[in-house]
């Protein structure tokens, strides 16, 4: 994994090849960082919820601030009906956030920079939201594709557009996260490569760029996790409170 900025996204096997039937489920570096992320999430929030003092310590404050942050995000976008899905959205937000953030450490692997991971998450959300919508509203959920107040002439076109936009939700959700992470990490790698190739004379400009980009990427890492979670909330809101 030398100069190629894409080599940081390589998945390679750690340990022996594990096969279940035809499927290869070997332990890879991606699996390693998924486990690191989940274990750190569980550790942080377990430490943060262990003791209950009126004056919270740092860990407790962190856990409680995250809790209230996500709770407020859900109640703002999806209302009080979304309360049963709080744990899922919280886990989703934390998982994406921690995977993004662990990816910011040099020589680590970014789990969320792989389309297959984000696509599985997004399609799970898409399928889940669709099922919730049909359970709550029956076939009335299809009214989502028929916005009110649209002239009858335009209606067929609008319905088609709405259906396409609905079906493209998992793709847009997954590609947004994956592309952001991949582009940012590639750019950082490219600028890092410039620093080496330009040496002491010209390396300072890409180095300063690299520093700035690192800050930007940390922001993007948080922002994309937030966007992922808030879009999930918005889709959930469509399913729970049919507005059209």
């Amino acid at each position, binding site marked *: 994994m030398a*100069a*190629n*900025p*894409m*080599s940081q*996204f*390589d*998945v390679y096997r750690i340990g022996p090849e594990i096969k279940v039937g035809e*499927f*290869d*489920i*070997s*332990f*890879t570096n*991606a*699996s390693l960082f*998924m*486990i690191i*992320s*989940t274990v750190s*999430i*569980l550790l942080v*929030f*377990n430490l*943060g*919820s262990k003791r*209950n003092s*009126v004056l*919270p310590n740092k860990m*407790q404050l962190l*856990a*409680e601030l995250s*809790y*209230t942050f996500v709770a407020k995000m859900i109640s703002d976008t999806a209302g009080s009906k979304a309360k049963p899905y*709080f*744990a*899922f959205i*919280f*886990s989703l937000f*934390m*998982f994406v956030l921690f995977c993004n953030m662990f990816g910011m450490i040099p020589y680590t692997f970014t*789990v969320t*920079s*792989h*389309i*297959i*991971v984000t696509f*599985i*998450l997004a399609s799970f959300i898409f399928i889940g939201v669709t099922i919730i919508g049909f359970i709550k509203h029956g076939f009335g959920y299809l009214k989502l594709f028929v916005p009110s107040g649209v002239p009858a002439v335009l209606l067929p076109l609008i319905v088609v557009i709405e259906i396409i936009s609905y079906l493209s939700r998992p793709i847009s959700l997954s590609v947004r996260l*994956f592309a952001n992470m*991949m582009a940012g990490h590639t750019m950082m790698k*490219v600028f890092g*490569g*410039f620093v080496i*190739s*330009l040496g002491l*004379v*010209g390396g300072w*400009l*890409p180095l300063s760029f690299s520093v700035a980009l690192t800050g930007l990427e940390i922001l993007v890492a948080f922002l994309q996790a937030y966007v992922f979670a808030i879009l999930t909330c918005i889709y959930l809101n469509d399913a729970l409170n049919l507005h059209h």
Partner: protein
Amino acid sequence: MIKKIYFQSIFFSFLFFKEAFAAESGGMPQLNPEFWISQIFWLILTFGTMYVVLSKFILPKISNNLESRKSQILENIEAAEKQREDSDAKLKEYDEVILKSKSEAKTIFNQTREKALKDIMAKKEVLDQQIDDEINKAEKEIEALRVSAPDKINKIAIETSSELLEKLIGSGVNSSSISAIVDDLSKRNGDKYYGN
């Protein structure tokens, strides 16, 4: 000059990297399906485990902690409010007690003063009475003495004058004649001697 070299080097480095990419030409590792199944499997495993642990054990605890803190703070505020009210009431009570005791002390003072004055007056009256009685008695005695004084004086005068005459003359003189003279004199000069 330096600037020119600098930008040129950046430009050439682009070319260099492009060549490097072209040489390796692996494309995006993300689109290589070799480990897709593995990633899906591990994603479901880790995310599922995390979701279950978070939703079953950790999140309820955090929400409990938050609720209990909220209620505890509310309780504390209520308790503080109550204590403040209590202390206010106590302060009022205390003020009242002080006021009451002050007025009581005043009345007690007045009463005792009046009583003492009364006592003094009564005693004074009794003493005045006694003094008056004594004075009256003394005056009566004086009066009696004054009334009886001339007779005694006359008697003494008669005795002395009879003794004097006896010594002067050598023989006894009739006392009745002397007493007659004394009486006569005392009647004449009585006013001069007794100042009445």
